[in-house]
């Protein structure tokens, strides 16, 4: 009886400690929950085989690159996040494309680096590369998430936990504020009812982008002012691409096009480099 009581009392604490230790744990839980929802209850469009291949390919590529670049520690949390993100976001007409996407995503982290920091969010980079390279095979479905209140709440909660733990949540909020201001300004200019920008802001796709893509602490500027400028630039470019060019994956295109700006902003406004955990664990993650 005593043993059991001790175990049940400490388990929640241990889980809390685990989650607090690294923001990626929250992210993995949030993304995996969405994938489980997708596969079990509500079809957001992710397919089991495609998801499995994306995740396995991401893990395998991380392992391989760790060996090639002789990184001392193999950390599988980041590739797991990339694999889950690709499963949820990228659609393709053949499962192998998802495996290729995951390999491109992870390899990009090791190859495309400046000042010891990778430039592009791996999943976002792979999505844009494939949209440009294989336009006849891949697409993203921005409407798939809908605007359900429960999903919006769940995403907001998960995001709060992730961003709080990563201490870089401001970039997502900056971005949403800029995007919201642009959409409301557009509605006011056109004389449209505010239900239109509200509907656009409730989009699950927008929230996922804000909470799990642009807020990637490894590929955003180190300083707060830099992050604000970056979020504003991405929102402006995405708005222009979406409304003037009718480009559907405007958010991803804008993010990837402007990510190199991070290097410049880091030099203009230097600040402490982000690490997922304590410095001794720094590797390529």
């Amino acid at each position, binding site marked *: 009886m005593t043993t059991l009581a001790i175990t049940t009392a400490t388990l929640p604490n241990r889980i809390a400690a685990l989650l607090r230790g690294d923001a990626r744990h929250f992210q993995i839980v949030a993304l995996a929950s969405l994938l489980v929802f997708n596969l079990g209850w509500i079809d957001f469009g992710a397919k089991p085989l495609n998801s499995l291949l994306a995740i396995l390919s991401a893990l395998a590529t991380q392992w391989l690159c760790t060996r090639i670049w002789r990184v001392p520690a193999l950390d599988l949390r980041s590739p797991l996040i990339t694999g889950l993100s690709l499963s949820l976001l990228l659609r393709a007409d053949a499962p192998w494309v998802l495996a290729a996407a995951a390999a491109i995503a992870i390899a990009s982290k090791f190859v495309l680096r400046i000042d010891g920091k990778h430039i592009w969010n791996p999943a976002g980079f792979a999505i844009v590369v494939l949209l440009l390279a294989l336009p006849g095979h891949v697409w993203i479905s921005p409407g798939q998430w809908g605007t*359900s209140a429960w999903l919006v709440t769940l995403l907001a909660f998960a995001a709060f936990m992730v961003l709080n733990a990563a201490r870089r949540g401001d970039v997502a909020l900056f971005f949403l504020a800029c995007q919201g201001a642009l959409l409301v300004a557009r509605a006011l200019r056109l004389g449209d009812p505010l239900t239109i920008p*509200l509907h*656009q802001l409730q989009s699950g796709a927008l929230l996922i982008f804000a909470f799990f893509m642009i807020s990637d602490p490894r590929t955003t500027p180190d300083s707060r002012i830099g992050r604000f400028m970056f979020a504003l630039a991405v929102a402006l470019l995405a708005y222009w691409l979406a409304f003037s060019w009718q480009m559907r994956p405007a958010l991803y295109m804008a993010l990837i096009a402007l990510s190199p700006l991070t290097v410049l902003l880091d030099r203009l406004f230097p600040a402490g480099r982000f690490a997922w955990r304590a410095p001794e664990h720094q590797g390529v993650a």
Partner: protein
Amino acid sequence: MTAKTPCKDPRNRRRRLKSTVAAIAIAAQLVWQVGPAFAFCGFYVAQADAKLFNRSSKVVLARDGNKTAITMASDYEGEPREFAVVIPVPTFIERKQIGVVEMKTIDHIDAYTAPRLVEYFDPDPCMTMEPRVAMSAARPALMTAPTRPVDRGAIHGVTIEASYDVGEYDVQILSAQQSDGLAAWLTENGYRIPPGAGAVLASYIKQDMHFFVAKVNLGRMQLMGHAYLRPLQVRYESAKFMLPLRLGTVNANGPQDLLIYALGRNGRVEATNYRTVKMQTGMDVPLYVKDDFGKIYKAAFDQAVEDADMRAVFTEYAWDMGWCDPCAGAPMTNKELVELGARWIGSDDNSPYYGYRGGADVYVTRLHVRYDAAHFPEDLALMETHDRDSFQVRYVLRHPWRGPATCFNAAAYRDQLQARFKEEAKNLSYLTGGSVADIQKRMAETGEPIRTR
């Protein structure tokens, strides 16, 4: 056990014919049941006090790159002389970009993509034989009337960019500079525009949209001998792939239904700013569904809309045009597809469209949406995906063996039937939200009794 009735197998011709008739009947029933009329993409601007309703409509969209053909069939039931419609279009439209399409072509694509029933007949449980399967299912008419000289004038900043005679319609292409000019111009010209339309028109004007205003020319209509208004088609090139729903919600009397038949070269079409959901499909349902399929499918659709809180677009069919299985209608001909805007197929003869299975150059998606201003505040934005998986709404009827069966297996078969009947009742209740008890009662009356013990 699957129902294999490929379109191109001549042995299935009779069966297909029967199916076609059934499918058309079902489609007609569905339209009748959703209400008397609608007007989606634009709004009716009556010139008299006729009762106008916006309740349901059909739109065919054909898209090849940025080239779009949009064909609009309304179920307008008022006097033709009172018909007038305003539709926003993204570009200036020349005469050659407008046409009239025969209603029967739209009826054909509707029947071809309609939700369907498949029937299976149980074999004699005392014999071993193959089950029998049956199935039931649920040219651009460009006129050569001379084009009038372009009438240009500016009233309230409204420019009549062009006026065309198109079949039984007089069409004007308008552009406007002042946001409130168009509403004022329409009112001054005798059009009765619904309250609230002015604000929506102003929004489109600021987005540099042009306006297509069509009204009926009774003289030409009588000359041509048409008793009804034919669907109008507009073709344009624009990156915008959308349907302007907002104007249609302005004078709507409750939610409206819109059926979209999208023809493209790549794959399934879906909405980008609303969730696209596949309708429930593939379930075994009670036999009596066959007698009342239109009504029951409507109940199933109502239920699906309710489950999605009216915030989804429903896919009812998504399939490579090169084949179908089972076919709910005869294959579309090249001529019909070209008439509907699929001008890329390379032939416009009367032979059935043929593409190699799985790789045909035409892919059709049938989307069904019920919308109102509260749940669909924004126009419907669409995109073509590369998903070429096959999807259809198809429910299964399994006829029990009705002949004598006295062998040892017969008792086990009867037990299986009981389990099957219960499952069918449960499925139908799940689909339509009806009570299982009511369904079982009706099943008992129609030869599928469920024993209480």
